[in-house]
C-alpha cells in the first residue's frame, strides 16, 4: 500500500551548519518552502559553530585587495588540483556573503574607525581574514544565521533528524528517509529539490577536531544515490591540534588564533625551531608555515625521535608578556588557568589532527551534482580547494556555496514540483525504523573507535601502499561485522542505532579515501605517500569515485580549465 510522505517540501536541506542555514535562507528568500533538517540541534551540530577564527575574503579593509588575488592564493595552495571555476566562485561570492553577514550583525571585529579587521593567515599574500573576538567566529556565524533563518519565514527547522538515505525515482532524487532520533522512528520526506550540506568526515580519524556528527554522511548519501565524489584522498590535517596536557572545555584547534596574533614558537624535544628544515620560511616569531608543511615537519621530527613527550611538538608562548596574552585572549587565559596552565611558564604540546576534507561531492558552479534534483554545498563539496585548503576558506566556502545551492534548488523545485513514490523508499524506511535481530555483545561505538584507529594509523597524513592495503582489509572486516541492518528495536535517542548508520556511512567513505589514496602514487598537498615522495606532474588530474552494485569505481579527469 502506498503511503504518503509525512513531510513535504519544495527544498529539503540536510544539515544546518553554515552551508545549510545559508542555503535555507536563500531558497526561502526566492520563494520556496524549505525544510531544514539536522541530526543534532539546529546550528549546533557541525564544524561551523566550532570554528574559532578566520574567514577569508577579499574585502580590502587593511590593504587594497581583490577576489582575483584571493583566487591566486587559493589556486597556489591547491597544488594544481583546484577546479578554478569553483575556487573563483568561493572568492567572488564570498565577498557578498560576508558583507551580507555583516549587515545581519555577525559582529566582525572592527578597528576604532569602523573598518573591519582582517588578520594575515598563512598562505595568503595579505591580511584577508575577518573574525569575531575572542575565538567566537563560529558561534557568531551560527547565531546570526539561525536568527536570520527564523526571521526569514518559510523555513521549517527540525533537529534530531538523522537522514539515512536519499530516495530516487527515474534517476531523479525526490526526497529522503530519516531516522527521527527523538522518537526512534523512520520518516519519509518528499522534496522538489534536495541539498546535501552535511559537512565533512574528520570524525573518521582518532585525533580530530570534529564533532560527533562528522562521519562523512553526505558523501555516503551521495555515493549510494549514484552521484560522483572527487578528490577523496585529500584530508587536511591541522598541524598544531592540542595534545597535552589534557584540557577540558577547549577546542583542540584553539592554538591557531594564538599563532595568528602572537606568533609563538614551534619547537622539538631539543627546544629548537625546525619547520625551516623542511622548506618553510624561517619563523622568526611569525606564523608563516602552511598546514601541509607543518604537518609534515612535525611528523618527521617525531619519527626522528625529536618529538615532545606525548608524541608531538612543543608550542611555546613563554616569551610573550602576560599583558599581551591577556590583551589578546583574556577570557581564554582564565580558562587555561582553570586547567592549571600558565603560558608564560610552560609550553604545551601539539600534534597534527584531522581537520577538514578537501574532497567531496562533485558539483558544477550551480552546486548541482550529477543527479537531477540533488545539490550539495559547504564542506560536503569537493573541488574548490584542490589538494590543500587555505586557512579561512572553509567558512567562506560554506556560506557562498550554501547561498548558490539555495538559489538553484529553489528554481529547480519551482520548475519540477514534488513527486513521491513510496515503493522506492520502502527499503530505506525498513532499515531506519524496523526492529532487527538482537545481537548481544555487538558494540557499534567500539567498532567506530576501531575504524578511527585504522584511519589514523594507515590513512593519516603519511601513507604507504602496504599501510593502505592493511586499512582496506580492516575496513572490510568491520563492514562484515556491521551486517545488513541495525540490531534491536529503535528507541528514542538510540545512539547505538545512530552508530550503526554512522558506521555504514563511515566505512563506505573510508573505502573511498583508501581507494583514491592508493591509486595516487605521488605526494601532493595533503596527500603524502612515503613510498612516492615528491610531486609528479603526470598526476595533475583529479580522481573521482562512484558506487555501482556495491563496488566502488575510481575514475580520473583532467583538472578543469581556468574559469
Amino acid at each position, binding site marked *: 500500500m502506498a503511503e504518503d510522505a*509525512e513531510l513535504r517540501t519544495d527544498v529539503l536541506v540536510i544539515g544546518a551548519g553554515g552551508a545549510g542555514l545559508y542555503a535555507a535562507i536563500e531558497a526561502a528568500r526566492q520563494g520556496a518552502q524549505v525544510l531544514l533538517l539536522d541530526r*543534532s*540541534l*539546529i546550528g*549546533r*551540530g*557541525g564544524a561551523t*559553530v*566550532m570554528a574559532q577564527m578566520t574567514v577569508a575574503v577579499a574585502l580590502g579593509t587593511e590593504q587594497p585587495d581583490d577576489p582575483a588575488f584571493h583566487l591566486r592564493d587559493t589556486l597556489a595552495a591547491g597544488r594544481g588540483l583546484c577546479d578554478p571555476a569553483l575556487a573563483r566562485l568561493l572568492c567572488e561570492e564570498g565577498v557578498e556573503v560576508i558583507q551580507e553577514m555583516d549587515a545581519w550583525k555577525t559582529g566582525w571585529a572592527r578597528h576604532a574607525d569602523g573598518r573591519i579587521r582582517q588578520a594575515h593567515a598563512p598562505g595568503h599574500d595579505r591580511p584577508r581574514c575577518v573574525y569575531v573576538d575572542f575565538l567566537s567566529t*563560529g*558561534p557568531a556565524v551560527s547565531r546570526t544565521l539561525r536568527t536570520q533563518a527564523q526571521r526569514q519565514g518559510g523555513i521549517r*527547522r*527540525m*533537529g*534530531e*533528524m538523522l537522514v539515512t538515505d536519499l530516495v530516487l525515482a527515474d534517476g531523479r532524487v525526490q526526497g529522503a528517509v530519516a531516522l*527521527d*532520533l*527523538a*522518537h526512534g*522512528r523512520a*520518516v519519509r520526506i518528499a522534496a522538489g529539490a534536495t541539498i546535501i550540506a552535511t559537512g565533512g568526515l574528520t570524525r573518521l580519524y582518532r585525533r580530530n577536531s570534529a*564533532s*560527533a*556528527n562528522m562521519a562523512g554522511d553526505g558523501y555516503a548519501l551521495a555515493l549510494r544515490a549514484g552521484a560522483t565524489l572527487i578528490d577523496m584522498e585529500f584530508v587536511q590535517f591541522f598541524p598544531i591540534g592540542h595534545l597535552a*596536557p*589534557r*584540557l*577540558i*572545555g*577547549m*577546542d*583542540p584547534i584553539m592554538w591557531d588564533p594564538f599563532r595568528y596574533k602572537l606568533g609563538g614558537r614551534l619547537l622539538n624535544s631539543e627546544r629548537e625551531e625546525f619547520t625551516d628544515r623542511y622548506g618553510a620560511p624561517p619563523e622568526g616569531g611569525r606564523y608563516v608555515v602552511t598546514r601541509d608543511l607543518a604537518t609534515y615537519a612535525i611528523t618527521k621530527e617525531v619519527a626522528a625521535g625529536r618529538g615532545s613527550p606525548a608524541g608531538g611538538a612543543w608550542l611555546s608562548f613563554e616569551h610573550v608578556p602576560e599583558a599581551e596574552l591577556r590583551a589578546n585572549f583574556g577570557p581564554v587565559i582564565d580558562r587555561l588557568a582553570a*586547567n592549571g596552565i600558565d603560558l608564560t611558564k610552560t609550553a604545551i604540546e601539539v600534534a597534527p589532527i584531522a581537520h577538514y576534507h578537501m574532497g567531496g561531492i562533485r558539483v558544477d558552479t550551480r552546486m548541482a551534482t550529477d543527479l537531477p534534483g540533488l545539490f550539495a554545498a559547504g564542506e560536503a563539496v569537493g573541488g574548490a580547494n584542490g589538494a590543500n585548503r587555505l586557512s579561512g576558506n572553509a567558512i567562506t566556502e560554506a556560506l557562498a556555496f550554501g547561498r548558490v545551492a539555495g538559489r538553484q534548488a529553489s528554481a529547480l523545485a519551482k520548475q519540477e514540483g514534488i513527486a513521491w513514490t513510496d515503493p522506492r523508499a520502502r527499503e530505506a524506511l525498513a532499515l531506519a525504523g524496523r526492529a532487527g535481530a538482537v545481537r548481544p555483545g*555487538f*558494540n*557499534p*561505538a*567500539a567498532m567506530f*573507535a576501531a575504524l578511527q584507529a585504522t584511519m589514523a594509523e594507515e590513512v593519516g597524513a603519511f601513507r604507504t601502499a602496504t599501510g593502505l592495503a592493511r586499512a582496506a582489509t580492516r575496513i572490510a572486516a568491520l563492514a562484515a561485522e556491521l551486517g545488513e541492518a541495525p540490531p*534491536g528495536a529503535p*528507541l*528514542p*535517542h*538510540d*545512539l*547505538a542505532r545512530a*552508530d550503526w548508520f554512522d558506521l555504514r556511512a563511515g566505512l563506505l567513505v573510508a573505502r573511498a579515501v583508501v581507494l583514491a589514496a592508493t591509486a595516487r602514487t605521488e605526494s601532493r598537498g595533503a596527500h603524502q605517500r612515503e613510498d612516492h615522495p615528491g610531486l609528479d606532474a603526470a598526476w595533475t588530474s583529479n580522481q573521482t569515485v562512484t558506487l555501482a552494485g556495491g563496488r566502488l569505481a575510481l575514475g580520473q579527469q583532467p583538472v578543469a580549465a581556468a574559469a
Partner: protein
Amino acid sequence: MSIAILSIHRGGPGEAPRRDVFEVPFEAGQSVLDGLRWVREHTDPGLAMRYACLNANACKECMMRLDGAVIYACTARLEAREMRLDPLPNKPLLRDLVTAIAPPDERPPDAA
C-alpha cells in the same frame, strides 16, 4: 589505577526510574563526557546521552545534572569518586540522560 563510579539515571518517560552504576578508569584531566563515552565504548552502547562538539563547549547539548547541579558534561571534571548523573529536571525526559531541549518549533513532530 583509580576509578570513577558513574551512577546514571536510566529509562524513559513513564518507566520506573532506575540507576545503573558503571566503573570507569580515571585519568586526571578527563571530563564527565569522556567517562560517559568510555561506558558506551566498553560496557553499554545503549546508554542515551546527547553531545556534539565533545570538547569545545560550543554546542551546549551535553547539559545534565551532576549530584543535582546542572553542568555541561564536557567541561565538568571526572573525579575518582561516585558521581550521580541525571537528566535535566525541567525538561521532558526522552530517555536516560536525554531531555527535550530543542526549541519547541525545532523538534520533530509527534508521531501522527
